[in-house]
């Protein structure tokens, strides 16, 4: 069997090139693939093969062909070969899509073959989905209309949905039974509620694939496909997959009442609905489509019953239906081909003009109507016999079946009358024998199967053998029995219905099939939901996104906090009440900043909070930290002001009151959770803080009394090294972003100042806009401040100060010069390239760190030198001071760089006209 599948695959791959080389004759060659399957099935009774595939998943290529599989292989292979042969004449020789069609068709035949011989349920699902996808591609062969698109999407969605449901059913079944091999599961089916769940899910798949109520709507819509595709997919192959599944599983599943009830109810409903709709269609193909829906309903109802006779009857009907329905589709294709229409109101006189075609059509339709001596009759007799038991439930089903048969007779008559009746002569040319032959063969096969009923019985009996119920044999003549009478009733009633309805001209055909509305509503609902959800959650608003993330943070962390109660209780509110006051100042400033309308106000309030934190440091006894914090705040404010010049004075968008409240709530919640976590974390300390040893170590190893500074330049010198590197990178980044042209960047080093004065009292001219007094004052105090900064730098090891603080002071001096006199003044004050200052600083720091190496120390190790110098007296020098000098230079360079780019360069850009667009 694997060989046959491989043959199909190979044929599908070769098909496009074959078609290109041989034209449409290639289809005859390709027909050999399904024909080989037919030949093999005719000569082989049963077969089993197993090949490993994905052992990790328990997935194997387990193939098994029993009586039912054999029947299906015969149909799939035989009808497939004939339809391919038919297609060789049906399509125009120059049809551009023929290669693609041929490849897909053969591939589909292969997938179908795989489906009916698969023993592993997962493998069956694989082939099942393959047929879905391939059928979609075949349906879409030449349908470009909107209706065709809708139909294809519908078919695809419905069958994919069903397929997934079925897969879940298989998995439930397989996991429960411990195997996915049907031949294993069938003998030892687990029972219980899980079985019912599996049954319902699998039936969902089968019903959707075979277009049964409530999924009946997709099949008529899929008739946009070319006729050969319809003949194969929608008569013999794909829609039979659902029927096949029901037939395969019923022998084991019939014990489940749900299985039986669902299958029979859905089947009967479909039978009647399809028959009724078929009577109202004007398009021959749609008539057949509804006829197919109807017959599929019959098949599922019969096969789902699970008695021996019903199983046999169902199998016979599967055979009969495949033969007559594909023949009829092919006939419609011929009619369409020669006349250009399928509308039975326009067709007339074909019967006289083309007797051969008419004969084939009538023969097949008679089989559909269940007239003797055709296969359809044999099947229907058996069906009636299966339910003519006298039990009340069976009788009710029987009544439905008879009514359905009457409708079948009626639409069969309508088909014949519509396609071939009428007296008006037709102009069309009769079809060639090559086009007609496949249909004729199929119709003749229907006749042969009817005549040779005992042979068919022998072949199908093994399938039904294991089931309960009395034995039955397929035959043309059972004597004057109840079924025969019911057949007569059905034929008579059908003829009457046809006579009553044929003259009526209703435009029911324009109506979409029932169930479409429900499908549309469902789709619309999903669409609607998606749109609403998108509108609600994906507005592209950053505050909203952030709000979502913060809320989840509050929930997750909040729950963790609450769940972790009781909390540690070592709470000490403050050391001095003054801390509470300062804390309140911080809080008030923060709230004010959040409420501020103007950017400047907000920024200043943030600054206030920062200064207040500095006060907290002082209260804690850390003047050094406080100094640094205050300086950083000041520098930050200066930078902010520089940037804010280019921004609107007020925050652009003020959110509505409602959303403002929400934001306030989120903010408060996040703050509360963060504070709680900080508290828990701080109170949860159990180990001794590592910093307890720092004061002693700072003196003994670092040689300084200022612990903070020693930490920076010695204990954690590596960290500082990393941080100053980041500072350098950040400064460079700011500069390269602001200086638009790289040429500007290269020239950012100031030109020699144009003003009077040289040496240390350099000033700039042309800064007339600014206050003269301010300029003079700043020039006077500038050097004092710089001197102070140097003092801070060198005294920092033992007293508050240090390179960072010193650098900031010097930088502020520069900033004051710039604010008072503009960029020329700045250039005059610091006639150096900021980049060079930065580079020098980094070089000094790294150099100091490395300098320890030659002396046998480790990187960044510091040495203490005590000297007596003549004038200065005792000098206590620690080498890490040089490291601090590097820090100092980098801080100065950073601020200088920012003043140049955010200040001076932006001044220049603002003063020159906007770049021409």
């Amino acid at each position, binding site marked *: 069997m694997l060989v046959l599948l491989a043959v199909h695959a190979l044929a599908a791959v070769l098909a496009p090139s074959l078609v290109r080389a041989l034209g449409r004759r290639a289809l005859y060659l390709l027909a050999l693939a399904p024909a080989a399957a037919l030949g093999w099935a005719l000569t082989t009774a049963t077969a089993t093969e197993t090949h490993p595939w*994905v*052992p*990790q*998943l328990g997935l194997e290529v387990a193939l098994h062909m029993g009586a039912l599989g054999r029947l299906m292989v015969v149909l799939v292979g035989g009808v497939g070969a004939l339809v391919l042969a038919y297609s060789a004449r049906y399509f125009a020789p120059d049809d551009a899509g023929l290669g*693609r069609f041929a490849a897909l068709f053969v591939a589909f035949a292969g997938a179908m073959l795989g489906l009916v011989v698969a023993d592993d349920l997962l493998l069956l699902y*694989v082939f099942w*989905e*393959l047929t*879905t996808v391939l059928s*979609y591609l075949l349906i*879409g062969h030449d349908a*470009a209309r909107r209706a065709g*698109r809708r139909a*294809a*999407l519908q078919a*695809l*969605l419905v069958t*994919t*949905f069903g397929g997934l449901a079925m*897969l879940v059913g298989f998995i439930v079944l397989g*996991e429960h039974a411990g195997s996915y091999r049907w031949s294993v599961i069938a003998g030892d089916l687990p029972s219980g509620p899980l079985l019912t769940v599996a049954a319902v899910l699998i039936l969902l798949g089968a019903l959707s694939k075979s277009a049964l109520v409530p999924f009946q709507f997709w099949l008529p819509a899929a008739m946009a496909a070319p006729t050969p595709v319809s003949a194969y997919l929608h008569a013999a192959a794909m829609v039979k997959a659902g029927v096949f599944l029901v037939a395969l599983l019923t022998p084991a599943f019939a014990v489940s009442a749900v299985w039986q009830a669902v299958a029979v109810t859905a089947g009967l409903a479909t039978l009647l609905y399809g028959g009724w709709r078929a009577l109202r269609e004007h398009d021959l193909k749609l008539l057949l489509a509804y006829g197919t829906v109807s017959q599929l309903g019959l098949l599922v109802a019969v096969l789902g019953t699970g008695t021996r006779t019903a199983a046999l009857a169902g199998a016979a009907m599967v055979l009969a239906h495949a033969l007559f329905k594909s023949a009829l589709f092919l006939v419609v294709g011929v009619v369409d081909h020669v006349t250009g229409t399928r509308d039975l109101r326009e067709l007339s006189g074909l019967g006289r003009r083309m007797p051969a075609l008419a004969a084939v059509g009538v023969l097949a339709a008679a089989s559909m109507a269940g007239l003797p001596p055709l296969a359809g009759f044999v099947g229907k007799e058996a069906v009636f016999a299966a339910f003519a038991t006298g039990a009340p439930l069976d009788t009710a089903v029987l009544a439905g079946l008879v009514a359905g048969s009457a409708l079948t007779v009626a639409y069969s008559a309508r088909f014949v009358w519509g396609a071939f009746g009428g007296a008006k002569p037709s102009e069309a040319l009769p079809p060639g024998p090559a086009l007609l032959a496949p249909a004729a063969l199929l119709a003749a096969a229907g006749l042969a199967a009817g005549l040779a009923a005992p042979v068919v019985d022998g072949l199908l009996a093994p399938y039904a053998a294991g089931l309960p119920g009395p034995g039955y044999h397929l035959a043309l003549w059972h004597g004057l029995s109840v079924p025969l009478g019911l057949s007569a009733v059905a034929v008579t009633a059908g003829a009457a219905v046809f006579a009553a309805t044929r003259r009526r001209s209703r435009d029911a055909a324009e109506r979409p099939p029932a169930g479409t509305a429900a499908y549309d509503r469902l789709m619309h609902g*999903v*669409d609607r*939901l*998606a749109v609403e*959800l998108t509108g609600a*959650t*994906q507005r*592209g608003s*950053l505050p*909203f*996104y952030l709000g*979502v*993330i*913060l809320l989840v*943070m509050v929930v*997750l*962390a909040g*729950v*963790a*906090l609450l*769940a*972790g*109660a009781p909390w*540690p209780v070592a709470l000490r509110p403050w050391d001095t009440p003054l801390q509470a006051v300062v804390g309140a100042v911080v809080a008030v400033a923060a709230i004010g900043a959040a409420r501020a309308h103007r950017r400047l106000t907000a920024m200043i309030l943030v600054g206030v909070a920062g200064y207040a934190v500095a006060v907290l440091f002082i209260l804690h006894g850390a003047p050094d930290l406080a100094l640094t914090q205050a300086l950083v705040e000041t520098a930050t404010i200066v930078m902010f002001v520089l940037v804010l010049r280019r921004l609107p004075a007020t925050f652009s968008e003020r959110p509505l009151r409602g959303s403002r409240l929400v934001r306030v709530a989120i903010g408060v919640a996040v703050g509360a959770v*963060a504070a709680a*976590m900080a508290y*828990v*974390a701080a109170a*949860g*300390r*159990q*180990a001794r803080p590592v910093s307890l040893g720092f004061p002693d170590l700072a003196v003994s*190893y670092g040689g300084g009394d200022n612990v903070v500074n020693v930490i920076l330049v010695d204990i954690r010198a590596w960290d500082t090294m990393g941080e100053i590197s980041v500072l350098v990178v950040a400064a460079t980044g700011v500069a*390269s*972003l602001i200086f*638009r042209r790289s040429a500007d960047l290269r020239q950012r080093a100031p030109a020699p100042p144009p003003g009077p004065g040289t040496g240390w009292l350099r000033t700039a001219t042309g800064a007339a806009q600014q206050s003269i007094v301010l300029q003079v004052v700043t020039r006077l105090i500038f050097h004092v401040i710089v001197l102070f900064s140097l003092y801070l730098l060198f005294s920092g090891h033992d007293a508050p100060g240090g390179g960072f603080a010193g650098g900031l002071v010097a930088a502020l001096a520069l900033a004051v010069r710039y604010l008072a006199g503009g960029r020329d003044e700045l250039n005059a004050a610091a006639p150096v390239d900021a980049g060079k200052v930065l580079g020098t600083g980094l070089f000094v720091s790294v150099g100091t760190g490395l300098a320890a190496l030659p002396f046998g120390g480790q990187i960044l190790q510091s040495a203490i030198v005590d000297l007596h110098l003549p004038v200065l007296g005792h000098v206590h020098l620690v080498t890490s001071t040089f490291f601090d000098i590097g820090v100092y230079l980098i801080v100065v360079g950073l601020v200088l760089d920012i003043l140049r780019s955010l200040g001076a360069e932006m001044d220049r850009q603002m003063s020159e006209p906007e*770049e*021409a*667009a």
Partner: protein
Amino acid sequence: MEDLNLPPIDYAALSPILILFGVACLGVLVEAFAPRRARHPVQLVLAIGGSVAALVMVVLERNTRVVTIGDAVAIDGPSLFLQGAILLLGIVSLLLIGERSLEAGGPFVAQAALTVGSEKDNRQAQGAPGNTEIYPLAVFALSGMLLFVAANDLLTMFIALEVLSLPLYLLCALARRKRLLSQEAALKYFLLGSYASAFFLFGVALLYGYAGGVNLQQINEAVAASQNSDILLYAGLALLAIGLLFKVAAAPFHVWTPDVYQGAPTPVTAFMAACTKVAGFGALLRVLYVAFEGVQWDYQPVIGTIAVLTMIVGSVLAVTQQDIKRLLAYSSIANAGYLLVGVVAQNREGVSSTLFYLVAYGFTVLAAFGVVSLVRDADGEATHLSRWAGLGRRSPLLAAIFTFLMLAFAGIPLTSGFISKFVVFGAAIDGGQSWLVVAGVVTSMIIAFPYLRVIVMMWLSEPAETTPTVSVPGWMTSAAVFIGVLATLALGVVPSPLLDLTNDASLFVR
């Protein structure tokens, strides 16, 4: 003070990370010193060559199981597998990134700092050679990812997270066209990503307080027997998880994904969708399986809920999307949900199935974005879905490829999408998480709808006047798409070798 002793370092085991890091630094130097014209070929060769070299080292080191460099990095089955996967996907992404024949100058802006809409900007859009700094950036991101999946302590993991994230933020902003969209995407990604990183760090701090260390084994031992308050553990884990789930785009931290995927240059989107996802899930697996195994019963319901939410959000919102990149973004969210199902399974199959899924999804999504980059009109890529109508007529091959990829996303058999969903769901059933599987199947049904709609639109609509043309791809994009499609098919038909590999690789060293 006792002497500091250097911990032993297994350089061979670390070599993939080191190689990429070195290559990225070299790339920066090339930017500084190579003449402008030579930069693109040199950078491209350097980046791909470096990645291949790193991949070779991963293969050579395949049997290494070691915790090295002071317990900071664990080179074990999962990390080697994930590193290999990231490198493979990264090489394919680099092919997409390096493509320059689709559009004069490539998909990246020539100078990122130019004001949008200015005269210079218009000039550069006409075909100035694109930025070549993208290569070092991408390689830095790759090296960060390699470290991320191997990090054995939370601080190393955080550093790796930043090393991989920062270049990505930048890369997002570098689109040649629709630059405002691209910059907005980068800004959103950066801001939200910074918050996520901050949460991660906060979580690390709390966990340090709990366990007295940031090493994953240390945390594991502390979970078993710590005297500290459980609040620290749970709050720390929650914050840590937020940081990681943000990276893998799990709901409700997914909000950035559609905007960023849409705005970023398509090759970068592909890179993020494939590689970042692998890295994020790799780290998530390691954290949950190694450090927090002891509290799995506590976090499983939470992660499970997030998984369900992610699947629902991804699949339902995908239905209404009109832009192919946004559609793929939601699809990636939904896939994150399926991956989480594997993570929550909390058994060995959970690990191996997640690994398999990551690789399979990565290749498919790379190919999909490769195709997206080919469908263009005069204004660049035509991503609106209505423009794809009738593409099957104009260029059947491309449409066929995309159809196949969509089917793979939908989980149709014989594609890797089916096998990967199957293994993940199977692991979840084994792990007793059937409710996740039910949600997974239902959402699979929903999300099949948009995929199938794209297919139908491509094949069954008449090409309109506005249906864009398909550019003839250069060999690099062709190769990337080809590799992606081939992998999708191969992993769907013969998944056994990779399944074996993931199974062998699914044990973490401790």
